[in-house]
Structure formats: structure tokens, C-alpha cells
């Protein structure tokens, strides 16, 4: 097991290095000049040049790269052009609302996805099954941000049950916090739940056709026990791989959903930064998200290895 973990870790190193190189190089060919935007309309060329110098934009590209890498090792992602603050600080602050949204969304995904998936899988062609199939089709056709606006229109705008947007930190005011979280989390959570449910349904229906389930049923165990003890455990193994992807989808989705519900977060930072040509911030956020993705997938792989010994042996 230790060797397996080690191997997977080593395998991800070149990806991390390549990713950082990609992030760095891409954003250094931006056509617009951040110094020019900062200076404004009435500045002179000398002023623009001075700003460029103070931002370090006129150094040789290789120097900028090595400085950037050295900075990364010390968790220094540079300073934002837009706010003049360390990027790492902006990420730390904005990661919180995004994380909060992602955690609640993912909980909804797991809860709804597994529940409906199991129900549909155990009773193929039942109403449960139809419901899962229909919602899958629904969520294929409805992108998450459209679903979000529809929810917003129905629940918040027309019925007035929940706030239209904004964010209150859950630890400041739990009730208000959850109210602002409800719609965005529901949007992201149910979209992914449909995917998970379909996946779980397939896995469960396959497992239920296995001999040991038939045996268990034949032993006279109640359906509940059969499902809980035999079906669930075995059918959830393949869904672990999916979980890594789903966490990634939820994080990506939050970029757009934050916008729908006027929430602060990493998504807002990255979009604002594109418009302001805030290179260090874009780089920082991209890098952090990529790192999270690699990590999440690694954990999912490792978990898979834990529950399914065959994977370990293969490695």
C-alpha cells in the first residue's frame, strides 16, 4: 500500500510542474498592458513606464519565471495588480465562501445522488428509476447557471422565500448564512446529484444481479438488509472514482453559480481579474485550483486502492 501511494505521488509531480509552467507562460502573453490600465487616461508615458517597472513587468521572462517558482515554494504568488495585496491572501479570503458552497453542494450531491441512485437501481423500471432518468435528461439540457437563475426566479424573486443573492458567513449568522447558501448549493448539488444517481443506479442494478445477492435474498434476509449489507457496499466502490470528478465539477461550477447569486468567492476573483488583466491573481487562482484537482483525484485514486485491492496489485 505504501508503495502504491508513493508511486501515485511521484506520478503527479511532473503534472504539477508542467501545470505551473503552463499557467505561468500562458498569461505572460497577454496582449493588453496591465500598467496602461492602472495608469488611466490622463497619465503620461513615463508614468506608465514607472508603473510597469514597479510591477516588475519589464524584467526578462526567465527571471520572472524563476522568481515566480521560488515564490511558489514559499507560498508567495506575487501581488495582485488590482488590489496591490498578496495574491495568496486574496485566495485565502475568497476560498472560504467558495469552500463553504462546495461543501454544502457536495453534501447535497451525495445525499440525493446515492439515495435516488440506490432506489432506482434496486427497483429497475420503477417510478424511482423513471424519476432518475428524467432528471438526468433535465440536467443535461439545463446548464447549472440556467437552473440557478430559474430557481432564483421562482423561489427568491416570485415567491420571496429566500434572498436573491449575496452571502452571510454561516458562522456569523447561521440562519441567514444558510438562507443565502440554500439556492446556490441546491443548484450545484442537484445538478451533480443527477449524474451520481445515474451512475449509482447502474452500479446497483449490476450488483443486484450478482449471485451473492440472490443468495442473500434466498437466505431470507429482508430487502433492507440485503441492500444495506451487500448491495450498497459493493456498488459504491465504482462511484469513488466519480467523486473526484464531481468535486472538480462543483468547484468549476461555483465560478458561474457565484455570479448567478452575487456571491463572493474564487470565481468572482478570477473573472474580475481577467477583465482587469490582473495576471498574478489569475495565475494564483488557476494554480490553486489545479492543485486542488490533482489532490482530489489522487485521494480518490488512493481511496479506490484501499477499497479494491486489485487496483493496488496492478500498481
Amino acid at each position, binding site marked *: 500500500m505504501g508503495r502504491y501511494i508513493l508511486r501515485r505521488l511521484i506520478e503527479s509531480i*511532473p503534472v504539477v510542474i508542467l501545470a505551473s509552467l503552463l499557467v505561468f507562460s500562458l498569461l505572460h502573453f497577454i496582449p493588453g498592458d496591465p500598467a496602461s490600465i492602472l495608469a488611466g487616461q490622463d497619465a503620461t508615458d513615463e508614468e506608465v513606464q514607472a508603473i510597469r517597472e514597479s510591477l516588475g513587468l519589464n524584467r526578462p521572462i526567465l527571471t520572472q519565471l524563476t522568481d515566480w517558482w521560488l515564490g511558489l515554494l514559499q507560498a508567495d504568488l506575487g501581488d495582485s495588480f488590482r488590489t496591490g495585496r498578496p495574491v495568496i491572501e486574496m485566495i485565502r479570503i475568497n476560498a472560504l465562501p467558495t469552500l463553504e458552497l462546495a461543501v454544502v453542494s457536495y453534501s447535497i450531491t451525495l445525499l440525493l445522488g446515492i439515495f435516488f441512485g440506490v432506489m432506482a437501481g434496486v427497483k429497475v423500471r420503477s417510478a424511482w428509476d423513471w424519476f432518475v432518468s428524467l432528471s438526468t435528461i433535465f440536467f443535461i439540457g439545463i446548464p447549472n*447557471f440556467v437552473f440557478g437563475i*430559474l430557481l432564483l426566479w421562482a423561489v427568491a424573486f416570485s415567491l420571496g422565500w429566500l434572498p436573491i443573492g449575496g452571502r452571510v458567513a454561516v458562522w456569523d449568522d447561521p440562519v441567514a448564512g444558510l438562507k443565502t447558501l440554500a439556492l446556490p448549493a441546491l443548484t450545484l448539488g442537484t445538478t451533480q446529484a443527477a449524474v451520481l444517481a445515474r451512475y449509482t443506479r447502474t452500479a446497483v442494478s449490476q450488483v443486484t444481479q450478482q449471485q451473492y445477492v440472490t443468495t442473500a435474498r434466498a437466505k431470507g434476509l429482508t430487502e433492507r438488509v440485503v441492500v444495506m449489507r451487500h448491495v450498497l457496499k459493493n456498488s459504491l466502490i465504482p462511484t469513488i472514482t466519480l467523486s473526484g470528478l464531481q468535486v472538480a465539477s462543483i468547484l468549476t461550477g461555483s465560478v458561474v453559480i457565484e455570479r448567478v447569486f452575487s456571491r463572493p468567492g474564487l470565481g468572482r476573483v478570477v473573472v474580475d481579474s*481577467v477583465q482587469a488583466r490582473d495576471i498574478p491573481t489569475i495565475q494564483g487562482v488557476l494554480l490553486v485550483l489545479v492543485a486542488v484537482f*490533482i489532490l482530489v483525484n489522487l485521494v480518490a485514486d488512493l481511496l479506490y486502492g484501499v477499497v479494491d485491492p486489485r487496483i493496488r496489485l496492478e500498481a
Partner: protein
Amino acid sequence: MSEMAVEERRAPAKPRAERSLLWTTTREIVLKNPMGMTGAILLTVLVVAGLGAPLVAPHDPLEQFRGQRLLGPSTEFWLGTDALSRDLFSRILYGLRASLLVSIFATGLGVLIGVSAGLVAGYAGGLTDSIIMRLVDTMMAFPGLILSIGLLAVFGVGIQSVALALGLGAWPGFTRLARGQMLAERSRDYVVAARALGASSKRIIFRHIAINAMPPLIVQCALAMATAVLAEASLGFLGIGTVAPAPSLGSLINDARARLELPHLLIAPAAALGLFLLSLNLLADAINDAMDPHRRRR
């Protein structure tokens, strides 16, 4: 891909068996599968409406009709007018057109880069393969939409940039697919035999791949197109896709968000986008079913 195309052209007329396979497959997809049929019909309508927007649209999508601002649906303006007194229906058609063009271009670019890289990786093996596949792994590690946003910062905002950014994000999937096919073909008996006879195996391999890889490639294309459509809409919604005044489905939806009291402004473009995505996915599913012998038997 280009190499494959050339090979296709050089190849003699398809044997009868192959042609009829193509026919049966198509029939399988469209006629025998209600989902596939729905997808195909929907997609045809949307493609005709979108690509033919200049002919189909009742009005110029940018023309302002003075004093006819934010109207509801009428015979003159089928879906009403927007805040700048423009015809919403025409704007949706042109948005659909933009979406189509972007997704076609992005998918094409993805196929071009991805398939060539995959074939090269699979054929050459060794270090080349390792380098290409590490690059693929790296690209796959990026969250799709965020990568596109980063690329947009490089290219600047605009429909061409969006197409390019999405294309550059779409290729790794195709690389994996093409490489897998190549690896499978290389070890086939006929190649080994051909090699033993001293013949060049290149030609024969590419021809076989072209035939065998087509079904999964088509499925992958449909899915990549759906991804591109969704991404284009998301970027438009975030305000970093197409540049106003050009309409995009995403930007139309974003405009509607500010005027929730007029829900038709939201529902119309959302429906167009939804049907587009649905049709692509249904069709991809149907093709997949038709190609998969295991599922076909069911």
C-alpha cells in the same frame, strides 16, 4: 485527422459490406431509437435555424426599433424586444449561430490537434509518447472552464478567442482516444503479418484506424460539441464571451437576469440553449448505443 482524410480519399470505393454497415448504423441511430430520432430532428432544426440565421431571422439582430422597448411577444416580434429595442427572436437565432460556429470550430481544432497528437504518440511510442501523454495529463488536470477563462485572458475577449480557447482545451480527450486505437491496431495480427512480409504497415494501420475509430470519434465529437456549447454559454453569461452587441445565448441569459420581472427574456434563450445541449447528448447516446454491439443486442 488530415492524414486520415487523405487515406480515405485514396482508398478505393468502399466494399459493399461497409456501406451497408454504415446504413444499418444510421438506421439504428435515427429510426429505431426514439431518443436518437428526437435528437437528430432537434439538432437538424437548430443547425438550420442557427447557420441559416441570416436568412431565417425576421430582423437584423442589431437593429433598434425606436419606441418598441422591452415588448412582449407579438406577431411582429415573436419573442418580444430587449432593452435596446432589438428583436429577441433574431438575437437568439444569431446567438445560436455563434454557439454553433464556436463549437464546430473548437471541436474541429480539438480533433485536429488531438488526433494527430494521439496517433503520433501511439505510433512513435517511447519518449514521444511519454511527453505527449504527460501533457495530456496536465491539460486534463485543469478545470475546463477555468482553463478557458485563463486562455481568454491571453487572447482577449471575442468570439474568435472563445473558439480558440475552447479548441485548445478540447484536444486531450481526442488524443487519448486516437492513441488507444493506434496501440490496439499496432498489435493486431494483420499488422504483424504485414510487417513480417516486409510491407509498410503505416498505410494499412491508418486505414483500419480510420474505420474502427470513427464511431467512438463521432461520439466524442458530439460530446465535445456539447461541452463547447455549454462553455461558450457560460463564458457569455460571465460577460467574457462574445463582445456586445453581438448576441450569444449566455449573454442573453445574463441580460435576462437583470430583468426577472420579464421572465420570457430568460426562458426563450434558455430553452434554445437547453434544446441544443439535449439534442447533442441524445444523439451522442444513440450513436454510442448503435455502435456498442453489447448494447445493441438488448
